[in-house]
């Protein structure tokens, strides 16, 4: 028998799976955050040039990476939802948008607090910062667009289209430090070149990135459960859920 890939694209099938996944991802997020903070604040030495202000990057870089990665995943789910007309895909996209916005705000705020002591300014209208701000507006625009359309399936299509069009901003953010002369420095970590930072600092950053990823999965799966209940309530399978019988 062929495996049916669409089996888990039904909200009724995926709802209990999402519920079961949340504790694992939430626990992993807490453990990785604790380890990452211990290494970043306790073990990693003071930077020779930036002093202790550099410790902000242990939050800033993972949050900035996640802000772009979440957008890519959200647009991917939107595309699947548009292509296959699977409503769970669009619900996944809907569940990711607020967390993407939170990660973008964290990246912008921590970046400003790092920039003040290091560059001498909280904010500059350079290409990297401006395009990251545009990313925040894209997230907020997608959330607002959904709020403004009553029919959730029409909202899925409109938001999906906006999310896909917005992908054009991702390479602009990523390559902005190469394409333009920005105040924001170029990449410290690259897949092709050896990292230009100490191993212990890199470790903390990677652990914190995993923590941010686990957190994103956990919190967006809880939001997905809420969205499924909001949109499917009044169906017999929702009424039959054990958690609603009290």
């Amino acid at each position, binding site marked *: 028998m062929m495996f049916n890939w669409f089996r888990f694209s039904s909200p009724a099938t995926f709802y209990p799976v999402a519920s079961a996944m949340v504790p694992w991802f939430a626990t992993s997020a807490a453990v990785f955050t604790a380890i990452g903070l211990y290494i970043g*604040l306790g073990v990693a030495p*003071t930077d020779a040039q930036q*002093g*202790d*202000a550099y*410790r*902000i990057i242990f*939050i*800033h870089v993972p*949050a900035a990476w996640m802000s772009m990665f979440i957008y890519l995943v959200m647009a991917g789910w939107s595309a699947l939802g548009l292509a296959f007309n699977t409503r769970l895909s669009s619900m996944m996209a809907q569940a990711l948008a*607020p*967390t993407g916005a*939170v990660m973008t*705000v*964290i990246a912008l*705020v*921590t970046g400003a*607090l*790092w920039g*003040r*002591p290091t560059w001498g300014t909280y904010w500059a209208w350079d290409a990297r910062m401006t395009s990251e701000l545009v990313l925040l507006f894209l997230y907020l625009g997608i959330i607002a667009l959904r709020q403004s359309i009553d029919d959730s399936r029409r909202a899925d299509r409109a938001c999906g289209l906006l999310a896909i069009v917005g992908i054009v901003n991702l390479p602009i953010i990523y390559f902005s430090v190469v394409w333009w002369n920005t105040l924001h420095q170029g990449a410290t970590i690259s897949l092709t070149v050896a990292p230009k930072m100490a191993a212990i600092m890199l470790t903390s950053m990677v652990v914190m990135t995993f923590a941010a990823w686990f*957190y994103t999965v956990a*919190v967006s799966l*809880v*939001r997905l*459960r*809420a*969205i499924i*209940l*909001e949109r499917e*309530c*009044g*169906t*017999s399978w*929702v*009424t039959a*859920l054990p*958690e*609603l019988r009290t």
Partner: protein
Amino acid sequence: MSEFFAMGGYAFYVWGAYGASALLIVVEVLAVRARLRRAQMTARIVTPDALSAATQGYL
């Protein structure tokens, strides 16, 4: 210990960044839990029977 909290004179920036991030995370977690609880409460009330009763006369 006080040396740790002083962060080499960058306490405002470092703890400001960590504090703001922690606050945003806590607010998001609380908001998402409240949303799930709200959705569960609504789903208890809006049953198929309640729906069909409410729409009778309109369809």
